[in-house]
């Protein structure tokens, strides 16, 4: 059964079991052993493959050599016939027959080696696929177990420290509130800054004798003097506009 199929059926059952064993320890050990076996059979097959491929090349070379010899001897036989040396031609034909038999042998051997090379290559490919598959299965199983165990540690930790996971909405509200508070504080700081900046400017203007407040005292004194002289009594609002 594929590991994901197994996971799917486990997920339908109890969550607790998932942290325990997606693939039981025994199966994991079997997979690990199979991975080791596959790796060693790959090593062996590769070693064998090198030998067989060498033989394949050797037989191919022998076939070429024999073919050349056959052609050479056949030409010699033709020459002998042309010179009327019938029995010599016969003898050469015998040699060619021997070479031809050897050639057939080498051809058969070569074909057999080629088949063996193909088989070994397929064997290596299969073993490699098996390793990849088992490694993936073990990896999925271990990862799943690890995630579920981590989650259960986190839950236990939250429970043991007495802090409760609040609901998502509550968390969101709190985070938003904090951001709003921060934004409000920044706005307040901003306006405070502006106000203080404003006052500082006013004070500078006063000190320089410029603006509304600069000659307030002088104007009031002038009003008092006018009253003291018994002239008309201007009300406070009648003072000259600054």
């Amino acid at each position, binding site marked *: 059964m594929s590991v994901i199929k197994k996971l799917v059926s486990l997920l339908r059952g109890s969550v607790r079991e998932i942290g325990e064993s997606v693939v039981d320890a025994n199966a994991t050990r079997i997979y690990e052993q199979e991975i080791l076996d596959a790796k060693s059979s790959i090593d062996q097959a590769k070693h064998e493959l090198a030998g067989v491929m060498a033989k394949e090349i050797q037989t191919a070379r022998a076939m070429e050599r024999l073919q050349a010899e056959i052609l050479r001897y056949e030409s010699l036989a033709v020459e002998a016939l042309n010179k009327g040396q019938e029995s010599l031609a016969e003898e050469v034909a015998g040699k060619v027959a021997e070479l031809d038999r050897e050639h057939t042998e080498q051809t058969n051997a070569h074909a057999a080696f080629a088949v063996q090379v193909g088989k070994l290559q397929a064997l290596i490919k299969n073993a490699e696929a098996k390793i990849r598959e088992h490694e993936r299965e073990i990896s999925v199983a271990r990862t799943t177990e690890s995630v579920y165990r981590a989650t259960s*540690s986190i839950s236990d930790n939250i429970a043991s420290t007495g802090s409760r996971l609040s609901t998502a909405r509550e968390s969101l509200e709190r985070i938003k509130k904090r*951001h709003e508070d921060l934004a409000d504080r920044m706005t307040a700081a901003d306006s405070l800054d502006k106000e203080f900046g404003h006052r500082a400017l006013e004070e500078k203007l006063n000190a320089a004798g410029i603006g509304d407040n600069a000659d307030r005292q002088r104007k009031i004194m002038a009003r008092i003097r006018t009253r003291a002289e018994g002239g008309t009594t201007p009300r406070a609002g009648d003072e000259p506009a600054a």
Partner: protein
Amino acid sequence: MKTLQQQLRGIDHVISSTLGGLAVQLQPIPGDVPVVQVSIAERDELPIFITCSDAQILCMCFLWTEAEIRPEGRTRLLETLLDLNPSVPLSSFGRVGDRFVLFGALSRDSRVEDIAADVAALSDNALDALDALSEFLN
């Protein structure tokens, strides 16, 4: 193979600088598999948990539980999560037991910078996803 803690050395600073200087705290979680909790200031409610197996490093953020989903919108929520999966960079939606998670998986030999980038993206994505999908929750 390095232990998870060795591999995460200094990740708090890298995450912090990725997130514009937010304070980041690391805390190992006791248990039979290695887990490290990453808490990010101003987002303490959404910590990221980093764990590993032989094959991968997994960064997870718990979003909500099965019980929090409004039953009438459940199918639509699940479909939305499937639709979102290919579009959200680095993070995917999943479920562990009855907990919905956003997670990012990395190769076991990832550099600390890569893990930090994944954690930062995960934190941003989780916050964004929670905001976008809260209509499906109680």
